[in-house]
């Protein structure tokens, strides 16, 4: 049985950052990274650009082989974890091999969630999580575009919206179906979402919010999507983009606690000894201590990977993971929407303050949410600011109450001035 001091399961953002953090502190320990894929790691975030043809698939690898060699990391492809035996600190792979570990990081990410829609399993549909998914979708999108075919996207999250835009740009007639009452729910507030939705409509995309799919039925080469309420959309291409679920199947019986994802503490330790978890596989705690959905945030996965890696290597500079903060940079039809943090709750108390500029019809929209002077969230469409600085202002719980007007007026320079005085 092969044995490594550190084994990292998964080679996406969290896993790769953990490798770097481990090696930064432990120059000698043996490390292996096991990736399900048979090719160099690729971020799900670039897949829409593969679908659109903007990036060739051979120029999107997150890391080249040399990177692993330089770190003296054994990089294993097509290594599927099948079972974890925490009592004996070993992993069993799908091909039957076993690998022993001193410390293990679970960074297996998430897989597309397939909603329990009647008839879905009887039709051909697409998801977008892996490069193979992207290549398959690119092919049908291009065909659909050429023939001005119809595409239906189930789900108006970032993946669905990106894909819808790409399909539309390719020439397809696109319909987005979202069961909640706005696009990009959880990422942007309703006003921002409305501006984004408007852009899609302006570009010929049909957006159906607050609508559920009742059933899917085969139709010729494609399918028909039947909505609750009776409406039907024909689809030459059906993309299911209804979110993701953590990839935890191999953890059954391992002693690693799983709820909505793997349960971890502030150092990304799981319930099992010598096992850490980071990234989309984790049930991320919100920085705000509330129920705001956190997870699926790329910079957050990196942060978790770093925390886990430092904790595994015993790096004394380790700081507890502060909790997830929603953070999105979203480009659509040449425009940009940025969001950091959370919106005010529906029944906000007296400490809450929301400042808004630019409503419907104006050039730009910006909303700043404060609670007792501390920044909670910033949402902007067609307004530029540095989301990284806003993120840090939130994490540091900086009192920006006195600068609320300035922040609203000029969020970029105001936040930069704060940064320059506080942590530069």
């Amino acid at each position, binding site marked *: 049985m092969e044995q490594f001091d550190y084994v990292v399961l998964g080679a996406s953002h969290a896993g790769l950052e953990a490798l770097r953090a481990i090696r930064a502190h432990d120059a000698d320990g043996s490390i292996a990274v096991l990736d399900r894929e048979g090719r160099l790691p690729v971020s799900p975030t670039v897949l829409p650009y593969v679908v659109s043809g903007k990036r060739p698939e051979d120029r999107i690898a997150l890391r080249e082989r040399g990177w692993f060699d330089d770190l003296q990391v054994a990089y294993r492809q097509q290594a599927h974890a099948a079972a974890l035996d925490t009592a004996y600190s070993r992993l069993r792979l799908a091909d039957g091999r076993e690998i022993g570990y001193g410390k293990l990081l679970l960074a297996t990410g998430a897989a597309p969630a397939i909603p329990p829609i009647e008839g879905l399993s009887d039709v051909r549909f697409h998801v977008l999580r892996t490069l193979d998914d992207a290549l398959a979708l690119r092919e049908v999108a291009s065909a659909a575009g050429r023939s001005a075919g119809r595409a239906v996207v189930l789900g108006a999250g970032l993946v669905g919206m990106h894909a819808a835009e790409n399909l539309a740009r390719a020439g397809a007639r696109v319909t987005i179906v979202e069961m909640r009452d706005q696009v990009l729910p959880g990422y942007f507030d309703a006003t921002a979402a409305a501006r984004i939705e408007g852009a899609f409509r302006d570009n010929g995309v049909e957006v159906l919010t607050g609508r559920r799919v009742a059933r899917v039925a085969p139709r010729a080469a494609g399918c028909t999507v039947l909505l609750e309420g009776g409406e039907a959309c024909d689809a030459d291409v059906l993309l299911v983009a209804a979110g993701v679920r953590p990839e935890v199947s191999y953890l059954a019986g391992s002693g690693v606690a799983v709820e909505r994802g793997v349960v971890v503490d502030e150092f990304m330790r799981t319930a099992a000894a010598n096992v850490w978890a980071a990234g989309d596989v984790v049930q991320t705690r919100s920085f705000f201590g509330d129920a705001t959905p956190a997870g699926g945030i790329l910079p957050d996965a*990196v942060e978790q990977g*770093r925390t886990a890696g430092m904790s595994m290597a015993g790096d004394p500079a380790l700081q507890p993971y502060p909790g997830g903060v929603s953070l999105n940079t979203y480009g659509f039809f040449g425009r940009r929407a940025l969001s950091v943090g959370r919106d005010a709750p529906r029944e906000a108390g007296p400490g809450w303050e929301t400042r808004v500029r630019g409503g419907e019809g104006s050039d730009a929209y910006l909303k700043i949410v404060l609670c007792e002077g501390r920044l909670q969230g910033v949402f902007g469409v067609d307004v530029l600011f*540095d989301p990284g600085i806003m993120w840090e202002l939130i994490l540091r719980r900086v009192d920006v109450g*006195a600068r609320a007007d300035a922040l609203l007026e000029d969020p970029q320079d105001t936040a*930069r001035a704060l940064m320059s005085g506080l*942590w*530069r």
Partner: protein
Amino acid sequence: MTATPTIAFDAARCDGCGDCMNACASAKSTDGKLAQARIHIIRDAESGRWGVAQCRQCGDPRCASVCPAAALEKGDDGIVAWDAGRCVNCLICTAGCTFGGIAFSAKEGYVVKCDQCAGAPQCVAACTRGALRYVTTAKLYNRWGELEDLFVPGLGGCQGCNTELIMRHTLRRVGSNTVLATPPGCIPGMGSVGYNGMLGCKVPVFHPLLTNTASMLTGIRRQYKRKGRNVTALALAGDGGAGDVGFQSLSGAAERGEQILFVCVDNEGYMNTGAQRSGSTTYGAWTATTPVGEGARGKTQDAKNLPLLMMWHGCEYVATASTAFMEDFYAKLEAALDASERGFAYLHLYSPCTSGWRFPSASNIEVARKAVETNFAVLWEYRREHGLKLSRDIDDPAPVTDYLKLLGKFRHLDAAQIAHIEQHVAEQAQVMRELAAMRPGDGLFDRSPSNFLNAAG
């Protein structure tokens, strides 16, 4: 991990003129139209201070860690480089950076960031206020980092002591073909010669007497020279062992031109034994033997200027340095090492003592910096063939009180004492100014103080 050059910003010197931004925009413009500055100077309305947003070329760049397209990468040159051919314009890098160092440019349609203009940053060149500096110290750190650390990993220094920095960096540069003398004081106290048979260095090291460091090194250097071996004779001595009880042997060896590299770590007193006064202790300073009470307010005499005394010996090389100015220290260490092949080289390091001077252990470098910026400690360099040269401008010093107020040992000072120190600092600065204005032919070479005084007077 290698360290890299950086562009440093001094808010106190910035007046917001914007020349740096203009210089950057025009440097980065191919046709004079599209470019947008990669440096932004911003004024904080609350404090009135100027701030900067610019890529810091982080050693551990988060913009690159979060980039899903591997379009950002820290290169061997230290620059976090952006690859247009890979960027998908997702802007996640702007969420990874907490410094506003990479931002979307509406004019250019993608993110832009500083690349330090291939080693010649135009913003720095354009800054007339000295608010922007291109700090290349990192190159030296890298070079030093590749050299073997010849001191044990752990040591018994006080928290925040900068002498570890001095020990390690000096030994790294001087190398293993060295005999190291550490006379009684903080450095052997930290464990250089070890305890009970355990050794603190990877080079031969010994306790000379407090009084005879330069003499013992004389014998060592001369014997190896006689046997055809070029062994560096290095002293790391305190100010007492150099300038008080050890001064005779130091003076004798300097006068004889012995080929020794003598480094004096001046913490202005006998700090290892409980902070007693020495000849290097500043006027007014509290020490254990110049206490503060009903009838006493600290030391009543000025410190002697030991490096200047050494210069008058006609040494091959004499310089003062500070750990707050490592680049300068490194350059002087190099020069001193080289000079010690030909004659006596004396390097005087101003070394604040966290415990004996009574300041927080995290402030050592800041204290050292303020000492220099207030002219309290003047950095200069003397080479026998070129005379004396100031290492940095001393004409626009910060107020001496900026330095005094940092230190517990000066807390009791009254107005008259502060005035005394201010005057002494000003006088010393003036002496250094006049010495720096002299050329070898003016009398610095014939080792005759009267000649110098005539010329300077």
